[in-house]
């Protein structure tokens, strides 16, 4: 179901990294209700009280407590319900409005600066981003990878430049510096899960975590590398000419 207002009564966009927290919590509550409704139907189909119906989630079957042979699978249940004109009884709808959660973390960057040319190489970025319970650790790590690259790129490469008349000068990749795989290292991602008490799934958001930590970590690393030369600040992108100028000003 994606953005179909015929199917989903209302919702907002995904901003705030809230999809799993809010949508996931609503889906979890709705699925619990569907299970309860299914038990009602299973009770009818198996001719027993719904209180005596057990769901074996691993097998995907409803059975009579203590008599596992008397059972019906999800497809069988739904098929029989559809034949009886009762499929709509398996539908549940839930809204969830939750409090904001606070993912946290820390990033550490290691850079090497060529003080003759101002060129900066990002050698290592260690990222700890706590997004609560991880529903899909592979995808969560992918989010951090992409965010780390974008954050590091903001620190070292990307800059949108206009001339005095407001004409954009960096409006193609020829002039807009965008890193390739050759310009970046692999990322050291450390998993950390502190479940939040603010929603039933204990999940927070991961989508923004990479970008938030990476830019200042890389920027600070460049300034730290140049501190022995008396540099206290380097304009972004902290690379090339901006580094060289900062060094010249510190010498003066």
């Amino acid at each position: 179901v994606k953005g179909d207002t015929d199917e989903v009564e209302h919702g907002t966009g995904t901003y705030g990294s809230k999809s799993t927290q809010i949508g996931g919590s609503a889906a979890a509550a709705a699925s619990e209700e569907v299970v309860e409704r299914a038990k009602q139907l299973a009770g009818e189909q198996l001719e027993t009280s719904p209180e005596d119906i057990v769901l074996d989630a691993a097998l995907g079957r409803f059975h009579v407590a203590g008599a596992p042979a008397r059972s019906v699978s999800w497809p069988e249940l739904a098929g029989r319900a559809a034949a009886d004109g009762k499929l709509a009884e398996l539908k549940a709808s839930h809204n969830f409005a939750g409090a904001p959660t606070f993912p946290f973390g820390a990033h550490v960057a290691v850079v090497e600066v060529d003080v003759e040319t101002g060129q900066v190489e990002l050698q290592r970025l260690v990222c700890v981003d706590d997004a609560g319970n991880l529903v899909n650790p592979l995808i969560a790590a992918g989010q951090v990878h992409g965010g780390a690259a974008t954050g590091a790129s903001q620190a070292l490469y990307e800059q949108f430049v206009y001339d005095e008349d407001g004409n954009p000068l960096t409006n193609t990749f020829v002039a807009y510096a965008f890193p390739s795989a050759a310009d970046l290292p692999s990322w050291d991602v450390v998993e950390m899960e502190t479940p939040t008490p603010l929603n039933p799934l204990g999940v927070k958001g991961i989508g923004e975590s990479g970008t938030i930590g990476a830019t200042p970590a890389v920027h600070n690393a460049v300034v730290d590398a140049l501190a022995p030369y008396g540099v206290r600040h380097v304009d972004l992108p902290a690379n090339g000419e901006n580094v060289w100028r900062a060094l010249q000003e510190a010498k003066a």
Partner: protein
Amino acid sequence: MTRIAVTVNGSRQEADVEPRQLLAYFLRDGLGLTGTNVGCDTSSCGACTVLLDGESVKSCTVLAVQADGGEVTTIEGLAPGDELHPVQQAFHEQHALQCGYCTPGFVLAAVSLLAENPSPSEDEIRHGLEGNLCRCTGYHNIVQAVQAAARAGS
């Protein structure tokens, strides 16, 4: 208009093209093979990468007439039958794609890289894929996927 004959994904295609038409647009608009993507105007991003006579090329920087008499492999032609090509399979398993826009270009560039260098180091992979840009993945899992494909002997 110029008459060209190009074998695309094993199938011979004859067409009249303007000499100035780029191969990328011949593939997309002429042949309906929209797996080859256009991501920039400046030969920078590599989303248009295809194989021409076995070499990876940026099809936005090749004229269709330059492919006359040649063989082109696009992303649509990579998988043998119903299974994924080992590089595609590796990209899938390693979560090396998110939005997928750069992926056809990366897969073909990786196929070409591994054909030249079957056991590349991480550094060789990163430099070998310099011509392909990605905003979603941060390249990390793309490198993992190429390494996995190399181990699988593709």
